[in-house]
């Protein structure tokens, strides 16, 4: 019998009789030409206690637990208080569908309204949506907003934007008739302002996209003069945030001129989980309100005069507007947004400030420690948040060697930037311990030395 089906044989007979059909097979009859020809090849059925055994065995085949890890690059290991899971995993939240029936979904709707508010408060934007799939698709959707707003079909994107975000942007643009031009990175690891200025002169770009802190960890704002040129060129400045904890320390993208802010909120309590589910956000100035994709929760009144929450401005969405919708998104990442909302509620301004501060502190400890190793140096000399680009010789080789010492040293930059194949992107968060850094440094001493000798 199918798993989790409550039917007894007698009930099946009674129900078939009531329907007036002789058998389950008859109920589902299809013409023989399309019926399956061979038995299905599926993992074997097993009782629940064996499923647990099997899945634990699979989990144990992953082996990264005991490593000191400096991985980041768009997915961050932060402390998530256990109170989050205790609340978010409550069945009412977990097993609800999208809150179409607002009267019995007030709790979830209020939580999403709070999420939208948190994102606005953190980014300095005026509105935010109920979430999109992740940071990369947030960039794609945010770019489409700019394209629709300007009627222009070109995008100008900094090469310091997370290469995977850029790749997804390319994928999305593969369906539209949109061109993407990239801006070079300067020697200080920041987007080259002069190139931007030159590029936008022709007023042909819908948006200019910067990430700050950028993929190299460097704080990469638009400077005031450039901001003025961008604005006068009619280009929409889009800011990407991939390390949301940075918002606890750095000024908001609104303050340096972003009109659309897109990003990833995984850092707010969402598990790493080998890449997902995470949660993208899109926030913007009020003028883009009717171009924003996906769900929006609004506050209104009910017929008893009480404040009440509901999905609103649905005329933007696919189920109403079909091919004319602002996006095709339907299911979003509500539950991850809930997790992030609970995280922010628990942390508060005080906690978020401290977490951000500890990320600053530990990453500087990391920078100091690794630079003390002969043959190792920091590639960029610019203010950074919690990630650094470390020149080691051959990034891929050094990482492989570090792994033998029980250290996941970071991400090989050569994977995305051939010109930085000598470098590793290393991340430190509040969970990076002094012991981790010592282990890394000791291993680097061995490894970089070994590399040099060869």
């Amino acid at each position: 019998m199918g798993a989790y089906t409550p039917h007894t044989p007698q009930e099946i007979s009674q129900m078939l009789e009531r329907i007036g059909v002789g058998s389950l097979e008859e109920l589902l009859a299809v013409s023989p030409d399309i019926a399956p020809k061979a038995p299905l090849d599926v993992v074997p059925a097993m009782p629940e206690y064996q499923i647990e055994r099997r899945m634990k065995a699979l989990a144990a085949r992953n082996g990264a637990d005991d490593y000191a890890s400096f991985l980041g690059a768009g997915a961050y290991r932060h402390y998530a208080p256990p109170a989050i899971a205790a609340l978010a995993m409550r069945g009412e939240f977990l097993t609800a569908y999208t809150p179409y029936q607002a009267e019995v979904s007030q709790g979830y709707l209020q939580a999403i309204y709070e999420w939208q508010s948190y994102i606005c408060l953190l980014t300095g934007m005026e509105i935010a949506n109920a979430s999109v799939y992740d940071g990369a698709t947030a960039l794609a959707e945010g770019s489409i907003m700019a394209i629709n707003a300007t009627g222009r079909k070109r995008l100008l994107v900094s090469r310091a934007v997370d290469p995977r975000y850029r790749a997804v942007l390319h994928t999305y643009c593969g369906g539209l008739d949109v061109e993407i031009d990239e801006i070079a990175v300067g020697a200080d690891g920041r987007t080259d302002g002069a190139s931007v200025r030159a590029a936008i002169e022709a007023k042909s770009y819908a948006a200019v996209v910067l990430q700050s802190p950028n993929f190299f960890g460097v704080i990469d704002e638009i400077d005031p003069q450039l901001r003025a040129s961008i604005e006068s060129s009619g280009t929409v400045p889009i800011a990407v945030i991939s390390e949301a904890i940075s918002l606890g320390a750095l000024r908001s993208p609104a303050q340096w001129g972003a009109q659309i802010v897109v990003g990833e909120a995984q850092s707010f309590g969402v598990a790493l989980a080998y890449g997902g589910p995470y949660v993208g956000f899109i926030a913007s100035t009020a003028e883009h309100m009717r171009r924003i994709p996906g769900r929006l929760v609004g506050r209104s009144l009910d017929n008893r005069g009480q404040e009440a929450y509901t999905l609103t401005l649905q005329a933007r969405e696919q189920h109403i507007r079909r091919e004319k919708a602002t996006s095709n998104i339907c299911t979003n990442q509500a539950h991850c947004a809930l997790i992030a909302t609970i995280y922010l509620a628990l942390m508060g301004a005080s906690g978020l400030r401290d977490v951000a501060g500890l990320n600053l502190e530990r990453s500087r400890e990391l920078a100091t420690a690794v630079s003390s190793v002969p043959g190792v140096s920091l590639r960029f000399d610019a203010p950074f948040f919690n990630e650094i680009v470390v020149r080691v010789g051959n990034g891929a080789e050094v990482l492989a060697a570090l792994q033998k010492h029980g250290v996941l040293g970071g991400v090989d930059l050569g994977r995305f930037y051939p010109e930085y194949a000598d470098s590793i992107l290393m991340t430190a968060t509040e969970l990076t311990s002094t012991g981790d850094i010592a282990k890394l440094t000791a291993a680097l001493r061995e490894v970089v030395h070994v590399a040099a000798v060869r």
Partner: protein
Amino acid sequence: MSQPSANSSAPALIFETGAPGRATEYVERSRPHADFLPQELLRTELPLPDNSELDVVRHFTQLSQRTFGIDLGFYPLGSCTMKYNPRVNDAMASLPGFSDLHPYTPDDLAQGSLAVMYELERSLSSVFGMAAFSLNPSAGAHAELAALLVAKKYFKDRGEIKRTKVIVPDTAHGTNPASAAMCGFKVISIPSDARGRVSLEEIEKVLGDDTAVCMMTNPNTLGLFEDHIAEIAAAVHRVGGLMYYDGANANAIMGNVRPGDMGFDLMHLNTHKTFTIPHGGGGAGHGPLGVAAHLVDFLPTPVVRAIPDGKTGLRRAPSDGMRFELDFNRPKSIGPMRSFWSNFAHAVRALSYLYANGAEGLKSVSQLAVLNANYLRVGVSEFLSTPYPEICRHEFVASAQDLKKETGVRALDIAKALLDRGYMAPTVYFPLIVPECLMMEPTETESKETLDIFIEALREIIETAKRDPQSIMAAPVRTVVGRIDETRAARQPDLRWRQSG
């Protein structure tokens, strides 16, 4: 379901509670940010409330109690397959070995997670008759977009750049045309015939060398099996087009008929429907994208590659003894659809559900889903008109059109009256072609008693509507809020809290 105590007012917004400095010590106090960065880069204000953990726990516990989920009652929301979400799946997804794994972990330290993806991918391919699945897309709509990008690239690769049209039946879900549009295709809508099926003739009328893709679902959103599917597929293929299967209704077909055998070239699954992944109040979802052999090269990156590849079959030998790697080097790929590889935690859940079923179990799941739907349909047809009075698959539509004429009570009113009686409402006003539509999908995890009691509740509503329509039109009255002023919500958008209040 019901309060132990009586304070039914909404908890204040989290921003209206707390006091500066009132926060739990999750981490130690940090040094001032200005010790590390120039002042001009730093934030001068961070207007988030500081609440105690106790107050946060109360806030979200209270919010949860103002939210209806499957765990509280029957949830017959058509097209959404709101079946039971087994807790073992959540427990497996939260195993630290899975949940703490960073996506950039080297392949040799991620073999368990890669095995999960491999076993899921291979199983799905067999169940649905596809050559391969990509676990990259995040939800159904995301997979639709990916599929259309695959189609576009496939045609481009073949030099068929004039294929600009996507055919979509009028009963299709809104994401289908929206995805087509996002991919730059022109959408051609096809009317359904009197039997609620896509008509082969209508399709043939619009087919041509500009046809790119025909998007269908089977059973369709009326719950009816498209019995001419093989002919339609043949016709589309004849003009060189591709057939796309919207898998939102896959709960009706497992072990019974495979999209691949029906002639589909591409398909998505909503594993957050069919494979018991909790919908979480709107997501996250998980939208595997399946393709036939000629389209495999175009799938999103990365793909899990097995060494050696699993020719042995899963039924006896799952992934044991094999090695895996993430393959990014796929020159014809459309590229990645998202930051990382997959909504991996959901892949764990889906695989766990597959292990609970095996092949035989999946077949039974679909059979019983269809059994429940027909049993409910027969019961409901005693007091509501069912525009397509024949055997349905996993769901069916009823219409309140007659009732509305008679009493003024509309589908929406029935929906609200159900809320008052402790049920989630069916999907209403979709598909668009049925007036005053109520679309009901009971799923296979509900018992006969639950269906019986629900039928009686609905009967009572219809009878009350005839006797006292006002009382139904006033519903809901027993919920924490009544009907909401949607116009006000849209006209005076209040989408966020502001300091002023």
